[in-house]
Structure formats: C-alpha cells, structure tokens
C-alpha cells in the first residue's frame, strides 16, 4: 500500500436510529501506515462509525471507503485484511479462550502464525484454556487482542480496547501497537485514555454529536489551543491586556499568569521580555484540555437544555 491510498476515507456520513441522529455528517481520514486516534465523549458516534466501517450498519448518506473498497458491499473481501476488537468483548461461554483466538483468526481467512500467537499469549499473561464464561472483562479483551495482533492484516480497528486492562497490560498493549506500526500496519484506535492516545497516535480526530470537530496531527491541534504562561518579571508588566489572544490574565505585583492562543504566543513573549523576565514557565496544552473544551461545550448545552426545561415547566 502506498501513501496515496488512504486506509479509511469517510465524508459526510449520516446514520439515524429512529429519532436519534447518531452520525450527522461525520468525516474521517486515516492514512495508510499511521496510528489514528479516534476521540469523543460517550455517545458521540465512535462505535457507530466503526460499525459502519465494518459493514455491520448501512449508512443513510455519505461516502465511506475502507482499504479502497465499499464497507457494505465488499464486506467479506475487506474483512480479510482487517482485525477488529470490540469495546465490549462477549465470548461464547463454553469455548476456551484458545479456541476463540484460533476461530477468529481463521474467520479472517487465514491461520494465525503459531509462534506469534504463543508469544502474544505469553506477553498478555493469558490462560487460553479457561472457558469464556470464567474470564474477567480484561481477560476477555486480551483474547480479542491476541487474536487481532496475531493476525496478518493491514488494518486494526480497536474500539476502546484497553478499558479493562491493568497498567502493566496497558504497557504491553502500547508496545504491540508500536510493533504493528513498525510493520506497516494501519491502526484506528478509539479510546478514552488520552495519555494512551498522546503516546501512540500520529494523528487524531475528535468527534462530538456525530460530527468531526477537530482532525489533524497532535502538533496541529496544539496549535489551535491555548498555552499557559507564568512569569516573574523585573518590572511591572505593561500592555498585556491589550494584546490579542490573551485570556484569564492575572497580575499580582511582578507576577503574571495568563493563557494565550498558541499562535499569538510570540507577541506575548516579546511584551514580557520588555519588562525583563526573571523566570518563565510555559505549559503546552494537553490533549486533555483540547478534549475537555469539547466536553464543556456539551455540558454547557446540557445546562442550557435543563434551564429551558425548567422554564417550560
């Protein structure tokens, strides 16, 4: 696969369930060979998007291509090159973990590499002889993860795959993702664990209420948000309040704390150095802040709705 062929191309995707508009014109582009983070609050439409990409749901409108094919019409062909780990893994009660791993591998159209399978079972510390009903949530996820990582596929689609894993297993998981990228695999990683996304992903898409609100590399996205600056100056600061892009300015004597839109940082630093800088800390925005901004919009909307509701009553 070449860079010219994106692994996933989705534009203007719509999907409704009854009156719920789960996807309202969602866009998603995943380049071949990248690890792409897929973020959004609960109910934003992440799993719905993934299930459309897997051909389990039929989109109402919009275009979707996966590995260059149509997800609904070419489902079986596409699935030969995909491994999927659902967010909520349910297993057959009376099949052992090992049986399920082998079955899922074969259903992808080829046998698993036995050495790799054994190695993954060892790394994830999974007991493959236990029956499905006796596994904990984390162990059920390990079963699906081993089956996915042991498969020779082009694209891994992982829907919140680590929600039940302990920190040690989380480490193992991150190493497996990096190995997959090193071998040229593409990964779509839907996750709530922002540190994980920051650690692993080349690019991220943030969705909210079925629409993509941010998409790009982490560096690009950081550019769009505010940097916190704390400085101790030699003399009184002047003119900071007039500068564009400065927020939450707090001046106490010679101490200054402020937030600034990252693309306006330069002017602020110049203004500070005019007063003589004794110490300076500048914190780049975290993904969490980026993400919370969209959460907070949701919360604000919810508050407004609640207030309207109260008035109506």
């Amino acid at each position, binding site marked *: 696969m070449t860079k010219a062929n994106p692994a996933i191309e989705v534009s203007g995707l719509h999907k409704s369930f009854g009156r719920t508009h789960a996807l309202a014109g969602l866009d998603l582009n995943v380049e071949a060979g990248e690890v792409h983070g897929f973020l959004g609050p609960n109910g934003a439409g992440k799993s719905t998007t993934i299930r459309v990409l897997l051909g389990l749901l039929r989109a109402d409108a919009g275009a979707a291509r996966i590995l260059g094919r149509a997800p609904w019409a070419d489902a079986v062909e596409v699935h030969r090159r995909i491994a999927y780990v659902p967010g909520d893994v349910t297993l057959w009660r009376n099949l052992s973990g090992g049986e399920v791993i082998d079955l*899922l591998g074969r259903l992808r159209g080829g046998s698993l590499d036995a050495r790799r399978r054994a190695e993954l079972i060892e790394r994830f510390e999974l007991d493959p002889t236990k029956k499905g009903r006796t596994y904990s949530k984390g162990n059920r996820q390990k079963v699906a993860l081993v089956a996915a990582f042991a498969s020779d596929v082009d694209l891994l689609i992982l829907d919140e795959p680590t929600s039940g894993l302990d920190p040690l297993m989380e480490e193992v998981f991150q190493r497996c993702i990096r190995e997959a990228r090193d071998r040229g695999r593409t990964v779509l990683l839907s996750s709530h664990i922002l540190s994980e996304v920051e650690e692993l992903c080349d690019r991220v898409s943030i969705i909210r209420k079925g629409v993509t609100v941010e998409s790009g590399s982490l560096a690009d996205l950081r550019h769009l948000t505010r940097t916190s600056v704390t400085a101790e100056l030699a003399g009184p600061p002047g003119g900071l309040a007039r500068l564009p892009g400065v927020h939450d300015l707090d001046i106490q004597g010679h101490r200054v704390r402020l937030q600034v839109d990252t693309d306006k940082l330069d002017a602020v630093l110049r203004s500070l150095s005019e007063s003589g800088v004794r110490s300076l800390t500048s914190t780049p925005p975290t993904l969490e802040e980026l993400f919370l901004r969209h959460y907070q919009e949701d919360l604000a909307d919810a508050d407004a709705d609640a207030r309207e509701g109260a008035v109506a009553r």
Partner: protein
Amino acid sequence: MTTSTDTGGARTAFAARSGGSRQLDGTGTLLRFALRRDRVMLPIWVAVTGLMVLSMPNSLKSLYGTAAERADLMTQMTTNSSLRALIGPVFDDSLGALTAWRVGVYAGALAAVMSLLVVIRHTRDEEESGRQELVASGMVGRRASLTSALLTAAVANAVLALLVAAGLAGQGAAGALAFGLGIAGVGMVFATMAAVVAQLTESARLARGLTAGVLGAAFVLRAAGDASENEGSSFLTWVSPLGWLENERSFADERWWVLLLFVGAALVQGAVAYELAGRRDVGMSFLPTRPGPASGRLRTAGALAWRLQRGSVLGWSIGFFLAGVVYGGLADGVADFVGDNEGAREIFERMGGSSALTNAFLASMIGMLGLIAALYIVSAVLRLHGEETSGRAEPVLAGAVGRLRWAAGHLAVAFGGSAWIMLLAGLGFAAGHGKDIGPILGACLVQVAGVWVIGGAAVLLYGVAPRAAIAAWGLAGAVLLIGWIGPALKAPQAVLNLSPFGHLPKLPGGGMEWAPVLSLLGVAVVLVAGGLVGVRRRDVTS
C-alpha cells in the same frame, strides 16, 4: 461484663459461620422486582395450565355423558396397562375424579416446568450474567435472592392452586382443593429442586436441562409404575412426585396426608439449597468448569454454529427417540381400549384420521411430536437472534464471513436438526411398535414440512423484524394449542387450517397426499428466502 462479651463473640462467630447477619434483608424488594419482571410470563403459564384443567369436565361430559359410560371407562382403565402408563389409573367414575385422572400428570408437569424456569431465571441466570453482583452489592442479605426466587414460584403456584380449586369446586370442594394443592405441590417440589441444581452448575442452560431431565425421569417412573399396578401402588409410582399427585386421589376419597410428601420434599430440598448456597461464593458452582483446549480446531462459522448447538441437538435426539419407543410400544394396547368407546374413537379419528385405531393413535402421537419439534426449530433459529443481540455475532461478521454464510450455519442445524429428530422419533416408534417401519418413518418425515414452515416464519421474523423475533415463540405456541386442544374442543376446520400441521395428510393409515406437503415446503422456502434477504439488507443490531 465478661460474660456479655463472650456471648457477643460467640454470636459474631456464629454469624460469620452462617454467612453473616440479616440474611433476608431486601427479600421483599427483590420479590416485587421478580414479579414485575415476570408480569407477562407467569400469568400466561398459570392461565394456560389452569384453563387446560378447567375445560376438562365439560369435554369429558361430552365424551362420557352417562354414569354407565363412565363406569365402563373405569373398568376398562383398570385392565389396560398402556393407557394407565400414558395417563394414570382411574380411582372413581365421577367427572371430578376423571378430570384429575385425565389432566393430573400433565398439569403437574406444566406447573413443574413453570417453577423450574422461574427459579433458575432468578438465581443462576442472574449470577451467570453478572447482574447478581450488582444486586448483592446493595442492602441485600445473603439468602435474599434464593428466597425471593422461591417465593416468586410459590406465588405463581398458589394462584394456580386457587384457580383450580375455585374452578373445579362444582365437582366437589374438597377434591378441587386437594387437586389444586397437589398441582402446586408438584410445582414447589421442582422449584426447590431447581434451587438445588442451580447451586451445582455454573450455566443456567445446563441447570434447566438437568432439572427438566429429572422431571422426565419422574414421568417415566410414574408411567412404568402405573403400567405394572392398577391403583398407583407400585414403588416406582411412589418415587415420582407426579405419582404422588395421582395417589392423592382427588375427588375419590382424598388422601390428604399425601400433601405432606410435597411439603416434606420441598422443605428438605429447600434446606439443601440454602446449605449449598451458604457454602459457595457468588457466581461459583459445585460442579467446576473444566478447562478447555489451549488451541482450537473450529475453522468456519458453520462449525461454530454446530459446536454451539450440538448439545441441544443431542438432548432433543434422545428425548424424541425415547418418546417414539414409549408411544410406539403403547400403540397396540391403546387401540384395544379405545375400540370399545364410541366417543373416544371419534376423538382419535378427528385428531388423527382413519378407522384403523392403532394407526390413528400412532398418527396423533407422531403429530404431537411434530408440534413439539416446532418448538425445537424456533429455539434453534432464534440462536441467530441470541448471538446477534449478545454481541457475539459481531466478531464473526467482522471476519471474512458473509452474513448469509453465518446464518446458514445455524439454519442448517435448525432445519436439518428438526428433520433428524423426527427421523429418530420414527425409528423409535418403529422399534417400540415392532412393525410398519416404512409407513411410520414416512409419517414422521411428513411432519417436517409443517415444522419447516414454522421455522421459516421464525427466520422471516428474525430477518425482517429482529425486535419482534421472539414472537416466533408465540407462533409455535399457537400452533401447539391449535393442534393439541383444537380437536378436543371440536374447533372448526377453518381454525385447524390456520396451522400448517392441519394441512398434512393423516399418516400412517390415510393416503399420502403430495400436494399439501409440497406446498408447505414451498411456503417454507419462500419464508426462509424472505428472512435471508432481510438479514442481508438490515443493520446488525447490538
């Protein structure tokens, strides 16, 4: 001072040994919750069982109108071991006593099935699904769940007992009360037995199967006992709770003390269940789950479907073969008896067909198994629904497996399996009857056309309206009702024709008619095809 501390310590130690104090906290809340969850299922069970009992006096009156005819029936019964095995001995020739004779075993069995389903649903099912943990983390005592499950069954059985006692009071109040209590007694014996079995197995499906197996054994023991003795005095009859019900002799100088057997058995089994429950952890069981292979040989979605359903196919196969052997073996003896009674002969002819009574009996029994096979096919087809809604279908469909291929695996087990169990029933009938293997096998296989129509309807519902897929059970239930009770109630042919089974030729004995059989097969094919189109086109639900 010292003394009081000591007793306090002793109390704590006792509390720790017996699983903590306030063990019944929350029982009331859980009971109300259970009754709310079962607000549809329990009334249906109670109503169907009750109506079956209450409709019997009239139906018997039309068959055996005069006292002389009833006395005749009673003498015949004491000499015919086949019919005694099928139904039980007659103790008196009043309408009440004949009602208790005719439906006692079956009403008791229905109460038993209802009770075991309720208890396992609220105990092992809850633990297996993990919901029990959520409940147990609240202000809920250690014994509250089991207690509320047993109380739910007790409420249902008590209502059934009242319904029977009130409805049959016209035949004699004492007999009606004894009969109602007896049916409820059978129910509670199997409720407490289910409570014991639920402690043993980790899977609710297995717990249901094992308890139902005990019920089947109780039926067989009673039948064997009644075949050998004509007044229920055989040891084998006394071993079976269904035998106790008959030996209670409702409407025939009731033996009230037999009710103590039900009470005693329920108390002992209940105590065992509580004792076992107190000795294990939530979610664990006494029969441990064995580890499985570390690597598997399942290669295809079809192999997975077979693996998931093979246990059920095995169970149904054994049941159908044995039923065939038993009923086949009874055929000649029953015909001897029915030949003497004009009304009963009419019934058998309406149910089954020709004047050859043995054939008519075989035809009606084979038809009954055909109706029951409709239940099998619905349960097998709805496995697709279960796999889909539980999320287990998703990883399979995310593999290189087309939806039709995935569905085909389960449908092959459902449709092939129903033909297979009818074939085994036929072999059983032929073995028990000892002759006519060709006509009997043919009669059994003809039923498959009707079974497949019901299966096709289930596929259509599942494919086109997955939310309503469960309605396929209602369809199978309606067909069962029409086929089972319709002829006895002299329902018009138009009603009987609503069921696909109403169109089948009456075999053995009648002539083979290909046209209706082929049309039914055609209908089945269309229904399945329609359902599969739906499966291909719709969203996978989650």
